[in-house]
């Protein structure tokens, strides 16, 4: 278990361990299969002890600080940061639009950088700081970008909005908000199917030109 603590790495050294785990799972699956009555679609999976053990083997410890709050978690290595936030931490402000890094709805900050959380395995942010839309406002006081989005009506349905705002904040911080054209270019990883782009650009310009701390 010791080397597992370091997190899953697909290098050769870990191969045997992986295989061992697979073998174990295979055996446990077999046990489950015996317990199955044919023709019955429902399987009371939660009662099978072997599977619980298998599940424990499938999980890895990870420490993530989300919006300033440390989380000590045990998760499957295949879990994306997006699904971790939404399904396990119930921080649903971060949205899933594609799951393939194509739309930007899932944009969060990891150690201050904007990333697509659907393309980020949660294991890889071990020890890092994640900021999601829920962590942007200071209590009841909205972040200037959130204010500007409301003022300029930078959305309709609001589904792309958390990603747009996280991207917009990063866009200014990166120094990529010096002109309308530059903003459009550096915000083009965030799709808005409702078509709020001009309003979004105006909101970002206002925050940038207002010189507020982002």
């Amino acid at each position, binding site marked *: 278990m010791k080397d597992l603590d370091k997190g899953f790495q697909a290098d050769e050294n870990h191969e045997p361990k992986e295989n061992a785990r697979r073998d174990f*799972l295979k055996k446990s699956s077999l046990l489950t299969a015996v317990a199955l009555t044919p023709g019955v679609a429902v399987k009371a999976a939660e009662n099978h002890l072997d599977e619980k053990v298998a599940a424990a083997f499938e999980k890895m410890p990870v420490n993530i600080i989300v919006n300033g709050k440390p989380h000590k978690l045990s998760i499957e290595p295949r879990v994306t940061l997006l699904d971790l936030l939404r399904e396990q931490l119930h921080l649903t402000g971060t949205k899933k*639009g594609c799951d393939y890094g194509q739309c930007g709805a899932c944009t969060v900050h990891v150690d201050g950088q904007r990333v697509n959380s659907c393309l980020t395995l949660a294991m890889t942010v071990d020890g890092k700081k994640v900021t999601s*839309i829920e962590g942007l406002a200071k209590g009841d006081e909205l972040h200037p970008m959130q204010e500007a989005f409301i003022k300029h009506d930078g*959305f*309709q349905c*609001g589904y792309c909005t958390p990603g747009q705002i996280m991207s917009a904040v990063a866009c200014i911080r990166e120094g990529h908000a010096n002109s309308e054209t530059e903003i459009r270019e550096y915000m*083009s990883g965030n799709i808005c199917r*409702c078509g709020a782009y001009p*309003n*979004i650009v105006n909101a970002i310009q206002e925050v940038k030109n207002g010189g507020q701390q982002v």
Partner: protein
Amino acid sequence: MKQQAQHTPPFTEGINRVDGIMKVTGAAKYSAEYELPGMTYAVFAISNITKGIITSIDIKAAERAPGVLAVLTHLNAPKVPGYESGKDPSKPPTTGGPLKFFVDNTVKYNGQPIAMVVADSFERATYAASLIKAQYKKEQHETDTEKNKFKAAAPKGGRNGGDYKRGTPDDWKTAAVKVEQEYVVPINVHNPMELSVTLAHWTADDKVTVYAKTQGVKSTQNAIAQAFKLPVENVQVTTKFVGGAFGNALRTWPHEIATVQAAKLVKRPVKTVLTRELQFNTVGYRPYTWQKVSMGASADGKLTGIIHEATAQTSSFEEFTEGTVNMTRFMYACPSVGTVYKITPLDVNTPTWMRGPGEATGAFALESAMDELADKLGIDPIELRIRNHADTDPENGKPFSSKNLKEAYEMGADKIGWSKRKLKPGTLTEDGWLIGYGMGTGVFGAGRGRATVKAALLDSGTLLIQTSVTDIGVGTGTAMTQIASEIFTGIPVKKIKFELGDSSLPPSPTQGGSTITSTVGGAVHDACTQLKEKFQQLIGNGGTDKPDYVKVLKEKNLPQLEVTVTSSGSTEMRNFSSYSYSVHFVKVKVHPKTGVVRVDNVVSVADSGHIVSPKTARSQIIGGAIGGIGMALMEEGIMDHRYGRYVNNNYADYHVPISADIPQIDALFVNKPDYRVNPMGAKGMGEIALIGMSAAVANAVYNATGKRIRELPITPDKLLA
């Protein structure tokens, strides 16, 4: 109908979106985001053949995979009682019926779900679904509309069936100036940002709660009640926020019924979130449509005859039709018009309405053809439209309830600098780019349906308004709040609470077809007006217009005062034709060497009555314009017909406009109220925001290059060919 305000209300900036703070902080809860104890996740295994029979399906490995609770296939899925009785769980657009999942071994389209895995985590369900193996007996499939056009036939039912003819449409053939051209609109996919979601939870043997991505909680409630033979009130549907839909959540789709079915089986909440790929063939799309417009005009530019034909695709099991050719019947004052509409059944899932349904496709052809005609006549395209302006509805002879289209042309032309446009194409350049200006008109029916609204003044000073309508993002809550605040002028906007998206609230129609502001807004207006009257009665004659509601309620010892009002359009409307209009103006730059088209300037003008909520209305028009730009320049669902499968079913390959594609857009409003439609004088604008835009872009591209692209999208390869 109550006293109507006959003045033109002031056009102001409008209030901020009432749900804005929730949307910018991540607090807004979309349907997948409800937390229920014991949540489980459903993932589909899909067919990789297009037509045929499943001869065997191996689910053993999936069943054994960790965390799996159930695997449903046609062999073991519990019966859906409503399916058995032959009743369809959702109303099909016309005839036939939607597919039912897991009832037999037939495969009717590529990507059809053949099994559903329910597991205790999304990852586990996804993995288990990948273990399912099926054997098939394949049959020859057909997915190409063009190749199968010979099978096209008039629809058997529905509103769009039947040819239309007035006068002698063939007159176009003998006209002084003629246009006869074919136009193609490919498959467009709604692709809202929010994936389709159904979350079902049986709270008792005969009671189910569903959080669904739907445009109508009531219609979803009915569909589920019917499918599971439950009393309607035993089905609770909640949809507080919708992440865009554009038509793809107008129906209850089979995967939603399957989710409810699975939840019953596993006795735990089941959440189904369709993948982006499945958005392409599970929840509808704008059908591939071939069109031909033949039109003729006298030498002075008066239309003498138009024939508009269209053939669109549908599925093998269900007729889908839309009003593709209908606008040609009433758009221009032409004595002789004929329309023909046909559909071709293919081995695909059923298409559905997508923003500007039918009309957006039809307007591309009609408004392109008008531009071609103007070009042949050597006159300005706006001038051609003005010469053929319909003062009364040529389809039925009725007067229009209101029509300010000429003013809209003028406003837009002024704003975009139409005078800079050259009549001769390909003659204007800027910095090595070819410059062109184009315009196109959009139109959509503006009716008012029936809705029920409850309005209550609470002793906390809050005005609570409730109805079941959903808000797919356009700002319904904001518009309704604005309407209420104009009646209860003494109550601050912050104290007005509009509650929506819940099937237990008084019934409103499904959100679609640009009717909500008129229908629900009309009912909100009537409910608030009656509540105010009730209050006046309470305080007796001589009461002020702005009483201290809280004080009065306290004095009278009342916790609240409420009314529930059902209202619909006036009978007077039968004597009128009522439409909303849009005129889109576009300036494009086309690179002569690469064929790249850049949209440089856009002005969209809406003639849709009084603008109730200016801020959200502006965004709605801009959003529709952008959707239209996507349709014109990039959107195309591409199928490899050899396999009957999409090759671009994701956001990277199916292009939608991104920020870098879109300039600043001017949304202008004629803003003249039409009190015949409803007491606010407002007409819908969701559809007209998009309808006509693709033609405007195509016409601008022609003006820039002299190349007429009649098959969307207008990609560089077509311009260089």
